[in-house]
């Protein structure tokens, strides 16, 4: 418990002024423009959109600038902002098969239909700091392929290709009448269905999911995964407008999709086949999409008749701790005044200490040296 404390208004005001000056830094250095952030720090923008659970690059850039690059603080600003807007409704599900693919790789099929497109990526680089980097210099023009581009072409997912032969489980569906869960409207009730789990993971903290995904690879809920496919690119968003009676294309967004393929030795009911974990995240966020897919898969242990042995399988543990805004709120609230609580505990400790000392004296001198040594 913490209590309201009066006083300190002036100190708070001055602290905010000081902080605003720190935000600006040396005024001889040009101030950050939003387009510099959206254009040149796109991974930070994507992370804030994903975990803020709101797709709006300019807004994410504003939040990053205001938060001085503290991405969790920026995510907090985004989450707070979204509560000020009305909800028009639910979009039609995006079609990742129709994605305008900028990057697509598979670690399971060398010659997958549609090809492996490396696209813009950190991969295959040496991770050496470039001391000669010139931020003002125009980059080399990327080469263009002279192949004909069909904007309506669909690129099959790896899971569709394997699915035809029955070697992999089909896409997950619910029984008729299932209503898609929405944790922004109804608090999670455990155990919860895979749709709500995926919503939670999609907005979950990248670091938390990365660590959990890593734990499954290291043997805590062993899952033996392959990166079946990772694709990144632009998809169209459509919204069914009641007053018009049809789906309106409202714009586009970039997403990363990951199909993780896992060995499954079969059960009494199901023949041996590959199973899948699924990841889908706003923007270019491969690490997050892969982690999400690993954790999605480990959370499915019960449905697949696997043994329960690790934290990454525990949906209450995973889903209750994945949200970095809830987490930071509870951890950082410890900074708020707890003076009364602490006084109460201090009194309690004093009382216990008195009782302890009295006990020691009663037991006589023999025990005293031992006690000292133990300390």
């Amino acid at each position, binding site marked *: 418990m913490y209590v309201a404390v009066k006083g300190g208004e002036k100190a708070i005001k001055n602290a905010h002024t000081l902080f605003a000056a720190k935000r600006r830094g040396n005024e001889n250095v040009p101030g950050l423009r939003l387009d510099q952030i959206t254009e040149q720090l796109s991974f930070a923008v994507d992370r804030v959109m994903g975990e803020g659970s709101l797709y709006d690059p300019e807004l994410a850039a504003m939040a990053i600038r205001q938060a001085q690059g503290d991405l969790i603080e920026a995510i907090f600003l985004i989450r707070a902002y979204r509560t000020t807007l009305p909800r028009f409704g639910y979009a039609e599900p995006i079609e990742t098969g129709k994605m305008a693919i900028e990057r697509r790789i598979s670690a399971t099929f060398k010659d997958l239909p549609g090809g*492996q497109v490396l*696209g813009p990526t950190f991969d295959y680089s040496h991770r050496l700091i470039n001391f000669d980097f010139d931020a003002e210099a125009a980059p080399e023009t990327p080469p263009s392929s002279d192949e004909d581009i069909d904007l309506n072409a669909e690129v099959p997912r790896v899971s569709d290709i394997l699915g035809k032969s029955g070697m992999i489980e089909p896409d997950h569906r619910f029984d008729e009448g299932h209503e898609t869960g929405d944790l922004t409207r109804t608090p999670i009730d455990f155990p919860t269905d895979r749709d709500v789990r995926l919503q939670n993971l999609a907005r979950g903290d990248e670091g938390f999911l990365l660590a959990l995904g890593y734990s499954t690879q290291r043997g805590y809920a062993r899952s033996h995964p392959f990166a079946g496919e990772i694709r990144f690119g632009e998809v169209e968003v459509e919204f069914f407008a009641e007053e018009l009676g049809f789906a309106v294309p409202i714009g586009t967004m970039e997403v990363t999709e990951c199909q993780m393929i896992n060995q499954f030795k079969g059960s009494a009911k199901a023949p041996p086949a590959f199973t899948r974990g699924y990841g889908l995240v706003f923007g270019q966020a491969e690490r997050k999409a892969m982690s999400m897919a690993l954790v999605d898969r480990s959370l499915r242990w019960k449905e697949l008749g696997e043994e329960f042995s690790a934290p990454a399988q525990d949906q209450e543990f995973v889903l209750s701790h994945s949200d970095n805004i809830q987490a930071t709120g509870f951890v950082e609230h410890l900074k708020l005044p707890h003076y009364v609580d602490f006084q109460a505990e201090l009194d309690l400790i004093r009382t216990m200490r008195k009782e302890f000392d009295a006990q020691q004296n009663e037991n006589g001198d023999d025990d005293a040296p031992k006690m000292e040594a133990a300390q």
Partner: protein
Amino acid sequence: MTAPSSPDTQAENAEVIARQRVMRVLAQAPDQQLEDLYEQFADKPDWTFARKPETGLVMTRGRIGGGGAPFNLGEITVTRAAIQLESGEVGHAYCQGRNQRKAAIAAFFDAAWLSEAHKQSVEANIIAPLEQEQVTAKKDKLKKAAATKVDFFTMVRGDG
């Protein structure tokens, strides 16, 4: 199998597809460019708001595994508006983002495209050129991506 659609339904579908194309092009147009096109548009008919611009959220959805049951992915900012021309046509706009002026202009062009008097002009001066630019930009992006396609050749293990 779906029953073969009647000529009426087919005509209706074609109308919806044509309107979706217009709304798609307008929603994806850069804010400033749409503003400039509005300023340059000759003989603007008078209009009033049928619905004032309003910014809100739409919850986007994915599908489990890519093609399965829907799940909620996260929200997107959207601004909507509706405009009525003096001749009666009502145009709608749902544009990604928070730019209310853009949504109003998009709704205006949607309304003008619906009116016999302005349809051709909107198609020729607004929609077709914007669409051409959008297609070219998308193709350019995909061509650059396509240049990073991998040509694999398999090395035989233990050979040499």
